[in-house]
């Protein structure tokens, strides 16, 4: 093994955490729009995001590879086989998860609360944020589900990250590589850590979410 277990875990957390933050920058406003505003095409958009929930990571990985490859349209960015590529890929992967879960959480909040917030002095945006605050349980769950999906996925990290030692190697790609090279002990260790992170987060959130 050429790489410290610790480095791998930290890199995985950092890459998928950044992917989550990046995805939130567009998923939050999008979910607020879909959850609060009535407009034509809203239903279609929502079902589009729902159907993207199960998008295969290899499909997304291949598409992004073709885009980011030097021969591809975004090749000039030079981000193929860097953490940036994985982050972008994972952020796209988890966007439908966040948007779907968060939108339905926001939809389940009484829309009149927006008026309540306004009459207590909130601006339009503060009122939307208040609704988001009411949906925070669902929102946190969406965030955790999305993060777990990102940190567990393999296809994107492999195809646009390249599993480069010391640069883009993450837990999932190292688990897969460990199996093909006979380093089972390493794969098993990493799998346990990955499961601990995934389950640990979920349990933590459920505990915190209790009234």
């Amino acid at each position, binding site marked *: 093994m*050429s790489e410290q277990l610790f480095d791998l875990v930290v*890199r995985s957390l*950092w890459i998928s955490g*950044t992917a989550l*933050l*990046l995805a939130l*920058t*567009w998923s939050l*406003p999008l979910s607020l729009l879909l959850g609060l505003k009535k407009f034509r095409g809203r239903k279609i958009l929502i079902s589009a995001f729902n159907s993207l929930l199960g998008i295969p990571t290899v499909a997304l990985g291949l598409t992004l590879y073709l885009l980011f*490859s*030097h*021969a*591809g349209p975004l*090749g000039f960015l*030079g981000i*193929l*086989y*860097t*953490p*940036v590529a994985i*982050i972008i890929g994972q952020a796209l992967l988890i966007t439908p998860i966040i948007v779907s879960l968060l939108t339905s959480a926001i939809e389940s909040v009484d829309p009149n609360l927006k008026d309540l917030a306004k009459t207590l002095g909130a601006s339009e945006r503060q009122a939307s944020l208040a609704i988001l605050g009411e949906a925070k349980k669902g929102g946190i769950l969406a965030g955790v589900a999305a993060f777990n999906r990102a940190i567990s996925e393999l296809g994107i990290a492999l195809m646009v990250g*390249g*599993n*480069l*030692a*010391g*640069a883009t190697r993450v837990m999932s790609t190292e688990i897969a*590589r460990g*199996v*093909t*090279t*006979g*380093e*089972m002990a390493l794969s098993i260790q990493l799998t346990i850590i990955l499961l601990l992170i995934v389950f640990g987060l979920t349990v933590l959130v459920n505990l915190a979410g209790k009234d």
Partner: protein
Amino acid sequence: MKKRAEVITFIAVVTFFILIVAGAPQSGTQLMVATTTSLYDSGLLDVMAEQYYEKYGVHLRFLALGSGQSLEHARRGDADAVLVHAPELENVFLSENAGGARKIIAYNFFAIVGPSDDPAGIENTSPTEALHRIAQTKATWVSRGDNSGTNIREKSLWAASGFESEELSDEDWYLESGSGMGTTLLIASERGAYTLADMGTYLKYRAENLIDLKVLVGEGKGLLNVYSVMAINPENHPHLNFQEAVRFIKFLISEEGQKLIGEFGVKEYGHPLFYPAVQLLKENLDPQLANWIRECAFFDDSECPDQYRLGQDELYL
């Protein structure tokens, strides 16, 4: 006004993250080398990367793919150099002018491995005879089926024994794993089947007690496995780091690099996983073996015909 402020905040946040990310882990230059999985998975290249970084301050980044895929990535300009073991494909690659400055750096042998009771009775026969017997007894065979260098060799061995792999796919006893060497070995072991293995992966799996398979046919001419390195043609992809790629090739054929290759695995497995090829070819140390390598991996009597040397003639002195 308010709208614009929001857009600006949004862009600022996104840029901020991208900057964090881009600025984080990379220090020093790096050289991207697309390579075959069997070579990478042996662990040799990680050791090499460490040594290389200490010496030159350059990170070798190895992209482990099948040989065919590695060459394809190189064609697209996604790697600076390739390290593969598929002479037929390399020949095409050179003739397309996709890359050059090819140097043969190492060799080892594939092996036909199988259950120790050897139901088809192939031990110590020739590779073609072995495959014949396997087909006749309908003993189970697991093929990689993934167009890797090993898979290509496997197909040409079957062809030399008079079987086309397309027809074989229809046979009940002929399985295709569609996976890497390790998984293929695991499957063969589970099912008491035969397969073609590269020695590096085989030894590692056996040392970890993951498989119950024995080398039955090995070290013959038909099972020779030759590794070579090429730089990508800078005319096709000026953004690539050609000078750094040449330095890497020089390192591989240097005494230091060759020694590293030849000594890797000795401690762990009792003998090397790869044998250095440079001295062998240059000084004709073992004429029979050198001739096998030439027959197997030379084009027009040369490891790299003049027109593909990309101006690096000193590599061939």
